[in-house]
């Protein structure tokens, strides 16, 4: 078998061996290897010492009132959450005949407040409404004006050819 302490990954086998977590065959292979490999033998001994030292660290049992304190905290939490629930229910109950109106009204008020805040944020860049001439230039399309003039010219050219009856029929259409 290859020496397991070559890398930290394979050396984990020795930790598992000392922790008694290896299957018997694998443990026997490690023991056989450790007899021939002084480095692994040393590591196993040192790890066993650590294990023994850690085993000696006993701790106090939990205090007797641990559960009682925990259940008190749980009760307090549940009471406060149920109090909140009751408060919400009482608000809703007040609106019971119009139960659907309450949330709608609240939502509408919220939306209005949000809109007011968005419109009136101090320091926010304001949109300046365009002045009258600017507005006009934005709406007038030069190409469209040219096209309209061309159409009018063309109509003028056709005007003598068209009979008044044709004009009447086209206008009725």
């Amino acid at each position: 078998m290859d020496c397991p302490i070559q890398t930290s990954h394979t050396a984990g086998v020795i930790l598992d061996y000392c922790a008694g977590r290896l299957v018997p065959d694998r443990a026997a292979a490690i023991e056989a290897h450790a007899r021939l490999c002084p480095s692994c033998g040393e590591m196993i001994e040192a790890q066993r010492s650590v294990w023994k030292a850690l085993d000696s660290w006993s701790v106090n049992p939990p205090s007797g009132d641990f559960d009682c304190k925990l259940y008190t905290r749980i009760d307090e939490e549940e009471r406060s959450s149920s109090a909140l629930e009751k408060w919400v229910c009482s608000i809703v109950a007040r609106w019971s005949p119009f139960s659907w109106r309450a949330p709608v009204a609240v939502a509408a008020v919220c939306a209005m407040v949000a809109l007011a805040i968005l419109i009136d944020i101090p320091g926010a860049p304001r949109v300046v409404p365009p002045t009258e001439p600017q507005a006009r230039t934005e709406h007038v399309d030069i190409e469209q004006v040219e096209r309209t003039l061309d159409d009018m010219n063309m109509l003028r050219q056709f005007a003598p050819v068209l009979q008044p009856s044709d004009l009447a029929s086209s206008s009725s259409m």
Partner: protein
Amino acid sequence: MEAVAALERDAELMVRVREGDSTSFALLLERHRAPVIHFLFRMVQNQPVAEELAQEVFLRVYRSRATYEPTAKFTTWLFRIATHLALNWIRDRKSEKTQESLDQDTPDGIARQISDRRPNVEQRLLYEARLLEVRQAIETLPAKQRAAVLMHKYAGMEYSQIAASLNCSESAIKSLLFRAYEALRARLAHFA
């Protein structure tokens, strides 16, 4: 097989807690109270703080009952919460010296009880000195290494469970544990 059955039982109990069965929560508390408190005590080395953190762990378990899904092992989930709380506490108190000394009385005035059945005073003193050495060796480990060693040694958790609790890969945990035990071997090898 027995361990697998126990894990399944935990998940089953938690599902019952989700459905509103408070007796199942009491059973879970009974099963895991001591391991969680002991783990936290060894992490923070202060009994009242460990119990306070353990209360928070179980409170969080109870609060999460409605959303609990048995996707991971219950113990892994439980120790993940405990580790998270302990690491936060250690981080917050890093600058403060909060470790209780062995000769310091507990807050309620009762002298600390050390489970030592040997009547010899000399042996008792030696034992206390060694215990202090072990505690200090553990305390000097970086918090994550400490958590990994405690879960590996005392909670008997598998690498995959420790990895899930510490949010690391399994190979990262193996090398973390190797470095931690290497440091402990350097400090505690004379215990043989």
